[in-house]
């Protein structure tokens, strides 16, 4: 199938007339001639209808939560309530310049202050920064605060971060960005961390440990209190990667588990949209020992008035040009105000119930759970190794076939520990009927793999494209449409 680029739609001289000032301004005469373009920027010349039609059609080539289930482990693809979008888009919020005086944005600041407060309460932490613009930036903030904490105590030898081998890739990448060395420790056969491996790694060089709980294997780390005790006894700190908080919301507080810093992916547990890959938000909560090092700015309240606090002597500094992804934060505020106290546990209970229901049912259908003896959290891992050995159909093939069935593929080949794995997270917003439909689809694919493996190995068949050649893409990178970059005549003659 051939699809046109917006550049192919372009016709010299055409334009969306209403979108630019009607009158030409000729006042660039005072700018030095050598600074002025000699021809207009090479952008498409199209009408408003051309644009609306082209991008509406492109949108229809996407899967999305609004159209499909996403049993995508570790990503928490749950429904994003429309009210969050609508209310965060009120002009009173959108039209605020970041330099507007605090007195003129009290409504906005009150929302952000409440969000800080609510997130501190649900994590059991002392203080919250809303500045990090994604989970990875939250991780950076947390680990940078660990470093600052040790340095402030004159403890300069702590240059290692311990990371379990099942961790998200951002964890080791963050430690490296902070200039720390990564010590990877093994996960035991039962899915928990091996305490002996932890003891071996702990020492005077330990700055801290980064953990996800439930882990990326979907199981609760049963030794968490013991891990916390040992890490603290060794002088280290504990970082909670909140990617999987959905499994525990309102039931278990990271602060109670002994974590010193926590990041929250607001685009996961707090239901702000993924937007095709962002913007996210990665609020970070800290225990009182780390509070002096929080990044700036944050919102303070005094005598009923709210203000941005930008000065904080021991802060690790600034992470964003302004106060973070405020529009995303407002969506999380709306979500939490609607969810409320009584809704917190409902999120975790239903997320974990859905995952356990799915896990039991797929096991009954003959799929291999990676940790059959363990209780699933909000997600679980299955291994398709047996199917691959019998039919040649891999986890990737299986995932592609799920697209044909109308389901987004689960996370594949992550965590790296389990061969041919699928990491499945249904989320709490999927109905029992949707879960049953997912199971039926998986069974259909498995049966097809047994009877006609080639059909699955060449899936998908019903999507806008067949499998793309990723090797070619990487070997000969084509990252921009070359003809659109070639200089061309000015388009100032109107058609």
């Amino acid at each position, binding site marked *: 199938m*051939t699809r046109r680029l917006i550049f192919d739609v372009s016709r010299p001289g055409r334009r969306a007339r209403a979108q630019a000032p009607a009158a030409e301004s000729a006042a660039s005469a005072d700018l030095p001639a050598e600074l002025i373009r000699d021809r207009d920027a090479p952008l498409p010349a199209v009408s408003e209808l051309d644009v609306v039609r082209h991008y509406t059609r492109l949108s229809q080539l996407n899967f999305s939560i609004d159209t499909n289930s996403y049993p995508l482990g570790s990503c928490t*693809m749950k429904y994003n309530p429309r009210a969050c979008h609508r209310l965060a888009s009120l002009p009173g919020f959108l039209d605020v310049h970041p330099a507007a005086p605090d007195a003129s944005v009290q409504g906005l600041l009150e929302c952000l202050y409440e969000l800080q407060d609510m997130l501190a309460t649900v994590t059991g932490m002392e203080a919250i920064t809303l500045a990090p613009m994604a989970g990875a930036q939250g991780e950076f903030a947390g680990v940078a605060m660990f470093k600052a904490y040790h340095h402030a105590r004159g403890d300069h030898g702590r240059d290692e971060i311990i990371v379990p081998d099942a961790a998200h890739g951002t964890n080791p990448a963050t430690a490296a960005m902070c200039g720390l060395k990564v010590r990877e420790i093994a996960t035991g056969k039962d899915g928990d961390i091996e305490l002996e491996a932890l003891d071996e790694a702990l020492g005077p060089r330990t700055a801290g440990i980064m953990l996800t709980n439930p882990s990326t294997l979907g199981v609760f780390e049963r030794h968490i209190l013991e891990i916390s005790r040992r890490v603290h006894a060794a002088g280290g700190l504990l970082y909670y990667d909140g990617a999987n908080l959905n499994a525990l919301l309102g039931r278990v507080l990271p602060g109670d588990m002994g974590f010193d810093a926590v990041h929250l992916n607001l685009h996961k547990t707090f239901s702000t949209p993924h937007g095709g890959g962002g913007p996210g938000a990665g609020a970070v909560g800290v225990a009182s020992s780390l509070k002096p090092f929080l990044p700036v700015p944050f919102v303070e309240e005094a005598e009923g008035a709210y203000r941005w606090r930008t000065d904080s002597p021991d802060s690790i500094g600034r992470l964003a*040009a302004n106060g973070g992804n405020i529009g995303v934060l407002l969506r999380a505020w709306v979500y939490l105000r609607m969810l409320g106290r009584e809704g917190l546990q409902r999120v975790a209970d239903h997320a974990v119930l859905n995952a356990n229901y799915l896990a039991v049912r797929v096991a009954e259908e003959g799929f291999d759970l990676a940790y059959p003896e363990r209780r699933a959290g909000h997600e679980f891992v299955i291994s398709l190794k047996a199917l691959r050995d019998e039919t040649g159909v891999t986890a990737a093939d299986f995932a592609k076939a799920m697209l044909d069935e109308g389901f987004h593929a689960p996370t594949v080949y992550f965590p790296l520990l389990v061969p041919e794995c699928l990491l499945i997270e249904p989320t709490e917003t999927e109905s029992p009927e949707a879960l049953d439909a997912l199971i039926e689809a998986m069974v259909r694919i498995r049966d097809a793999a047994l009877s006609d493996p080639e059909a699955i190995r060449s899936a998908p068949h019903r999507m806008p494209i*067949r499998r793309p050649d990723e090797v070619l893409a990487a070997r000969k990178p084509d990252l921009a449409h070359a003809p659109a970059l070639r200089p061309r005549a000015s388009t100032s003659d109107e058609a």
Partner: protein
Amino acid sequence: MLNRIGLSRLRDLYDEVPDSLLRDEPPSIFPGLDEAGVTRIARERARRNTPLLCFAGGGAYEHHIPAAIWDIASRGEFYSNYTPYQAEAAQGSLQLTYEYQTMIAGLTGMDVANASLYDGATAFAEACLMAVRCNRKSDARRIAVARSLHPAWRAVARTLLNGQGIELVEAPLDDSGRADFNYVYENVGGGFAAIAVAAPNYLGGMPDLEAWRALADREGALLVVGINPVSLGLLRPPGEFGADIVCGEGQPLGIPMSGGGPYLGLLACKSRYIRQMPGRLAGRTVDTAGDTAYVLTLQAREQHIRRSRATSNICTNQGLMVVAATLYMALLGGEGMRRVASACHARAAQLVEALTAIGGVRRAFDAPFFHEDVLCLDRPVAPVLAALAEQGILGGIDISSDYPELGNALLVCATEMRTEADISRYARTLREIVALRQRAARNMEPDDSGQSA
């Protein structure tokens, strides 16, 4: 469902959690609201944000946002889809991102652009990190940066570079508000991985990119240029001056000011540096049937593959903002962007002319500017801005503490949104405030008889 899996209570779902950790009672936040209830509160809060007539820029700008942009960007297929790792289920987002990369490359005059970073400040920090990795001629771990580059960008870069022991050395302002890199080379010595400037810079002025390219060549440094994409509707792009890496704040491309975010970090470079670029990249390839297909590519640079050896820990991009920016650039086109940029410049020129006609207000620099300029006042800026805000005007940004060398300095901006009437209103109000305060100041002085007037 519980029965189906052999449990009797929801609490049994947590049977592997130590009892001491498990809470029966949820933590105490507000009781839940229905949609009508939260709407009531949100509207009341939004109303309490006072609308101000905006003459502030400094990295966030009020431009017209065409109606089609957020109508399309708010479609569920863009709003609620995931990162396009499963290319077959995300051809819309992938093709759009490829078009976005092409448009940013075209606008900046560079070979390639990535699928975006968080905001202008983090894009600048990543550009610095990238420059250190890319510069094969030097293993220097410091960057010479113009003080005229956004103070918050420099602050964020310091935060993010600090961990890797990379240092920012600031080049002071010269009399025309430009960066004095010669001073740095004469006084601090050489050994920089890159020279970093912004064009236009935070103070509204235009650096001499030709001179800095020559200096960079002489010293074996890369040239990093920060941009405002709207200005490139009118101005020659940094690619034509030989920039190695271009970064910028994409907010002016159809993204609301939103109190400071979410915005859009732009990053573009010469093709030889692609493999050191952080963040996602969309590429064009073919599928097994030989038809055109789009994918995320060169993922071996990224954290989910390379873990601790990745180019950055960044995982997300600002996908939804990419949709908005792409629609903006498509709707405006080259001509529309020229019109917007020219109108911004014309309005800003009118604004500066009107304000400097007031006694005690003068320009800080006698140099060309794009759509912002620094004004020096004969008194502290903060009380003047507060008095303007009382009259419903956001009069600019007080940069006196960020740039103490400029004295009482006010950064003002006008975009195509400001009318002549808006500018007159600002000038009239400022004149009244200045006069009032001059009278008040006179009244405070003792007269000859020793009695207060």
